[in-house]
């Protein structure tokens, strides 16, 4: 058994910072509970704000202080994201509650424990190195934006205690690792006595007895310690030292994902919404990684604040649904798509809360990672490109051309929206599936088909005929070949009865003109039209 503990000492403060606008972390911030300040950031510490101060005292010391309310549910959502990120590495993940401040209020967890013995081979390479795994773990947690203290030990509680041990400024290493029980016991013996949860209540009594380290406590007679401080204290110490079993219930990964972020201030601009949504996306990516899945469709719901009381016209929320052509869990790509979509969206009111939920998942084998560009990576890149274009221009603006078997030139080709790029950079559309396979046959058929111009004008341009001569933009046209009669479409509204000619303008360019076989009432007697140009 090898347990890795991730201790988040600033969890509640960081989950509060996430609700603020970008760049607010540098300003003095503090979290408040009913009794007063519970935590403060570095800038606030510099101004003299310390946990335990009353609200009025803190504001007198630093009037510019941003005070937030401590919220256990918000902390739990932040910690859940860390748990999800950890679940990508091992199925047995659990949390350890923080030290109880008082007996009346149970402490919320602030430490995540992972049992990684079985995962070392996969993440740590053939030598089963722990630092290889930790490196990847750090990379997975980094987008969530937490300060993490890491420790590893053979027992879960031992690892949690090691991670919580105070660190001197520079003398101690950043991480504490005890690979076997004797090292762990030696380290714990030197640890301060208040590390144990229940010991905190008796902190002054222990201090008065001259007990500073856990080793001092162990040297006392057990029955006396149990009688005076309760059996929990010794029981916890025994579990940490590996002398008593410590079964843990692993956390199961939820089958559906939904997370939310209540913003501290109203988000008026896209940038502010995007700043909050970036964290939600990072949480979603952590969950997707643990699910070994890719997202196909997700929804960002922005809840609005009514402008005034009983405001019926402002909708309570706006939902932005993002459907992806190709399932993905790349946070950069998802954020680019979200940015483009948000830039187009006009929000009716400022947002006060963001909610992100995954609607549709795709499970597939993970892709091989390649150093050099290959056909696969090019296809991936093309997909990204098409998706980005579709996100900004609209899905109907990325099109492809399809050949249709119709003699009328305006119906011989059709534009359909491109939906996906197939392997080898090939494009697929929703409407046509079999056409892609017989495109070679189409090419052969096109060679035998009569000549058609490349450019077809959407609106046929009427031509002036004067003195048996056709004129285009003031220049004479010479008919070179024709007529080619096209007479079809009597069964639908677009009946065409035309004689087509290839004509040449005076500068030498070739154009395609036709003469209506019968006079058309709607064309006011004009019977010659320009339909195409030979590009």
């Amino acid at each position, binding site marked *: 058994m090898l347990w890795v503990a991730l201790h988040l000492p600033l969890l509640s403060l960081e989950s509060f910072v996430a609700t603020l606008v970008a760049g607010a972390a540098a300003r003095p911030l503090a979290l408040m509970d009913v009794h007063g300040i519970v935590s403060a950031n570095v800038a606030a510490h510099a101004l003299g704000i310390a946990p335990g101060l009353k609200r009025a005292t803190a504001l007198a010391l630093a009037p510019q202080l941003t005070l937030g309310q401590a919220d256990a549910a918000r902390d739990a959502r932040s910690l859940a994201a860390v748990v999800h990120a950890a679940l990508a590495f091992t199925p047995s993940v659990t949390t350890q509650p923080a030290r109880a401040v008082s007996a009346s209020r149970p402490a919320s967890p602030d430490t995540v424990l992972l049992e990684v013995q079985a995962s070392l081979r996969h993440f740590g390479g053939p030598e089963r190195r722990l630092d290889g795994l930790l490196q990847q773990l750090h990379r997975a947690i980094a987008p969530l934006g937490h300060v993490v203290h890491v420790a590893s030990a053979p027992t879960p509680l031992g690892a949690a205690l090691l991670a919580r041990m105070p660190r001197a400024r520079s003398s101690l290493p950043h991480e504490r690792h005890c690979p076997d029980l004797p090292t762990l016991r030696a380290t714990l013996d030197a640890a301060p006595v208040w590390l144990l949860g229940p010991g905190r209540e008796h902190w002054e009594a222990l201090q008065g007895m001259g007990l500073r380290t856990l080793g001092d406590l162990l040297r006392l007679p057990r029955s006396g310690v149990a009688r005076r401080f309760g059996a929990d204290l010794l029981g916890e110490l025994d579990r940490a030292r590996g002398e008593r079993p410590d079964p843990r219930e692993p956390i199961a990964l939820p089958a559906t994902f939904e997370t939310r972020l209540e913003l501290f201030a109203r988000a008026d601009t896209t940038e502010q919404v995007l700043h909050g949504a970036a964290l939600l996306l990072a949480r979603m990516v952590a969950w997707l990684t643990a699910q070994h899945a890719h997202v196909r469709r997700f929804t960002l719901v922005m809840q609005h604040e009514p402008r005034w009381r009983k405001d019926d016209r402002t909708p309570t929320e706006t939902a932005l649904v993002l459907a992806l052509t190709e399932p993905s869990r790349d946070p950069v790509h998802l954020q680019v798509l979200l940015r483009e979509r948000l830039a187009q969206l006009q929000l009716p009111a400022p947002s006060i809360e963001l909610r992100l939920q995954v609607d549709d998942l795709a499970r597939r084998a993970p892709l091989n990672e390649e150093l050099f560009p290959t056909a696969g990576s090019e296809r991936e890149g*093309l997909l990204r490109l098409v998706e980005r*274009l579709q996100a900004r221009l609209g899905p109907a603006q990325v099109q492809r*051309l399809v050949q249709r078997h119709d003699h009328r030139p305006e119906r011989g080709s059709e534009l359909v929206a491109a939906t996906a790029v197939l392997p080898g950079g090939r494009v697929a559309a929703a409407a046509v599936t079999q056409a892609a396979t017989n495109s070679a046959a189409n090419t052969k058929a096109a060679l035998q088909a009569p000549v*058609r111009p490349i*450019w077809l004008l959407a609106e046929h341009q009427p031509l002036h005929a004067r003195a048996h001569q056709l004129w285009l933009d003031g220049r004479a046209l*010479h008919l070179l070949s024709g007529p080619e009669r096209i007479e079809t479409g009597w069964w639908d509204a677009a009946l065409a009865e035309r004689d087509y000619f290839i004509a*040449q303008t005076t500068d*030498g360019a070739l154009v395609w003109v036709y003469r209506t076989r019968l006079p058309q009432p709607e064309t006011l007697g004009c019977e010659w039209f320009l339909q195409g140009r030979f590009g």
Partner: protein
Amino acid sequence: MDVLPPAAFVAASASAPRRPPSVVGAVQRAPLQPDLLHPALWLGHQLGRQADAAVPSGFAALDQQLPGGGWPRRALTELLLPHPGIGEIRLLGACLVATQRAGRLVMLFDPPADLSAWALARLGLDVEQLLLISTRSRLIAGSDTLWALEQALKSGHVGAVLAWLPPRLRTERLRRLQLAAQAHDGPAFVFREVAAAQRPTAAPLRLGLRAAGADRLAVRVLKRRGPPLEGPVHLELPTVLSAAAGQRAQEAIADSATAGARQEEPALRTASFVNLA
């Protein structure tokens, strides 16, 4: 070895790019070849070279005049047209077909009119594998065209790009595209109006196209990495007309040329009449 003169000894002991001692005296006679030093260097009368192999255009006469012997990769190629429909797609046809054969994508940005799938298939293109991006319908014309084009060029995953740019484009916009094109491993063609020839361009290759009769195209090299080219290059495009019709076309051109000469005088008289009035 002790019979070597001191100068030769110094040269031999120096670093590798120095010339061997036997040719030290021949430096003055040998022609200077800066193009061997770096692909970005060439003499005024030479054609420049490309770092990457160029894509053959399918026209030997044109390839001779293009630096690197074809359409450049990783750079913009500017084509100036009086109006669409003078044979520009047929000019690029061979290059586009080669790109598709290599399994890469051809993207078209804002074509000026509808494309006929049958005519493209006749050129040998796989019609279903063309991607058309239309951006004209947006509020500020051109802003999305340039954005989309830059994204496509930057991604480096597109085989060939054809873009019809909005008129009167500012030079720095084109320079931005040219920078993005450096990541694009393939030819990138931008079509612009003829009036753009008056303004400088960031694209290393600029051609002016003009119809020169039926199924013929006159290509003027307006800018290239090499000496300026005086006359246009005349190219025979893949034919649209039958042999008999082609014959008629040549006669029509000759007729209109003589007719134009005859009509010149009355046109002048009309103009002078207007001035007097």
